[in-house]
C-alpha cells in the first residue's frame, strides 16, 4: 500500500497531475489542522474569541452608560450637560476600540506565528519530508485570517445586536460596508505580519516591522495624492461613512491598494521563505 502524506518533489513528479494535487492538498490540510490544534493549546483561539466578544459587548454598553456614570460621579449641585447617546456613539466606540486594541491584540497574538517555529525548529521535520514551503506560508496566512474573520464578525454581530436593542439604527448608514473595510485592514496587517515573520528572526522584530509599516502608512497620509489610495483609510475613516460624510466611491482605491499589499506580502513572503535558511 502506498502511503504518501508528504512526498518529496522528486517522488511526486512521475505521478499524475490529479494525484500531485491531492498530495499537495493533503499536506495543506494536515498543516492547517496542526495550526488549529496549536491555536487551541496555546489558548490563542480562546483569547481572540473572548477578547473580541468582550469588545463587542463593551462598545454599545460603554456608549450608553458613560453619561450616566459621569453624572453619578460628579459632586452634587454640579451640572454638566451631556448629550443623550445615540447609535452613532456605539459605533464610534467600535471604530475606536477595534482599530486600536483589537488590532493590537491580533498582531501581538500572531507575531510568533513564524518566528516561534524558527526558534523551536519545528518546521525542519515537515519541510524535509517534502511539504512545499509555499504551503506553510499560505496555510498560516489563511488560518490566521480565518481566526481574525471569525472573531471580528462575532464582535461586529454582538455590537450590531446590542446597538439595535438599545437604540434604533435608522440614522446610521453604510453599517456593513464600513465594517467590511476594517476587516480588510485586518487581513492586510496579517499579510504584513507574515512577510515580517519570514524577514525577522524574533517575534519582537515582527511586531516592530508591522508597527513601522502602520506608522509609515500614517505618515504617507500627510501627502494629499497618496491619501486618496492609502489603505490606512480603511481603519481610520469608517465613522465618516456611517455619518454620510464620505461616499462609498472614495473607498475603491484604498481597497485596491489594500488588496495589492496583501498579495505582495504573501508573494514576497513565499519568495523570501524559499531562499531562507531554516
Amino acid at each position, binding site marked *: 500500500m502506498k502511503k504518501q502524506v508528504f512526498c518529496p518533489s522528486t517522488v511526486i513528479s512521475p505521478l499524475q497531475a490529479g494525484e500531485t494535487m491531492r498530495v499537495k492538498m493533503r499536506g495543506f490540510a494536515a498543516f492547517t489542522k496542526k495550526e488549529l490544534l496549536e491555536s487551541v493549546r*496555546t*489558548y*490563542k483561539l*480562546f*483569547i481572540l474569541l*473572548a*477578547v473580541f*466578544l*468582550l469588545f463587542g*459587548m*463593551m462598545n*454599545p*454598553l460603554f456608549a*450608553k*452608560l458613560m453619561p*450616566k456614570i459621569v453624572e*453619578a460621579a460628579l459632586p452634587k449641585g454640579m451640572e454638566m450637560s451631556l448629550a443623550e447617546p445615540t447609535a452613532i456613539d456605539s459605533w464610534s466606540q467600535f471604530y475606536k476600540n477595534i482599530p486600536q486594541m483589537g488590532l493590537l*491584540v491580533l498582531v*501581538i*497574538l500572531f507575531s510568533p506565528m513564524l518566528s516561534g517555529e524558527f526558534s523551536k525548529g519545528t518546521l525542519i521535520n515537515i519541510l524535509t519530508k517534502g511539504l512545499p514551503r509555499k504551503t506553510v506560508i499560505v496555510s498560516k496566512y489563511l488560518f490566521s485570517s480565518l481566526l481574525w474573520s471569525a472573531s471580528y464578525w462575532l464582535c461586529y454581530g454582538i455590537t450590531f445586536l*446590542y446597538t439595535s*436593542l*438599545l437604540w434604533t439604527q435608522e440614522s446610521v448608514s453604510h453599517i456593513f460596508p464600513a465594517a467590511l473595510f476594517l476587516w480588510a485592514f485586518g487581513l492586510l496587517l496579517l499579510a504584513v505580519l507574515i512577510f515580517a515573520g519570514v524577514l525577522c528572526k524574533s517575534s519582537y522584530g515582527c511586531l516592530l516591522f508591522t508597527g513601522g509599516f502602520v506608522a509609515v502608512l500614517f505618515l504617507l497620509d500627510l501627502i494629499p495624492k497618496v491619501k486618496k489610495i492609502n489603505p490606512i483609510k480603511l481603519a481610520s475613516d469608517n465613522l465618516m461613512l456611517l455619518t454620510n460624510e464620505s461616499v462609498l466611491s472614495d473607498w475603491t482605491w484604498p481597497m485596491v491598494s489594500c488588496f495589492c499589499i496583501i498579495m505582495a506580502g504573501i508573494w514576497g513572503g513565499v519568495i523570501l521563505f524559499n531562499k531562507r535558511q531554516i
Partner: protein
Amino acid sequence: MKEIMPYIPFLIPYLILEFGLAITALIHVIKHSEFRFGNKALWIIIVLFFQILGPICYFVFGKGEE
C-alpha cells in the same frame, strides 16, 4: 444604581466572559510553575486585578513553554 438596572441583562454576559477569562488564566497560573519571567504571585495579581489585559498578557508573554 436604579438607572443601571434596565441594562443588567446586557451586563451579565459581559461580566461572565470577563471573569471566565480571568479564572481560566488564574487556573493556568496555579497549575504551572514555569514562567518566562516573574513568579506565581506576580502573575496571580496581574491576572486578577487587570481586567481583560491581565489574562492576555499572561497567555502571550508570561506563560512558560511546556
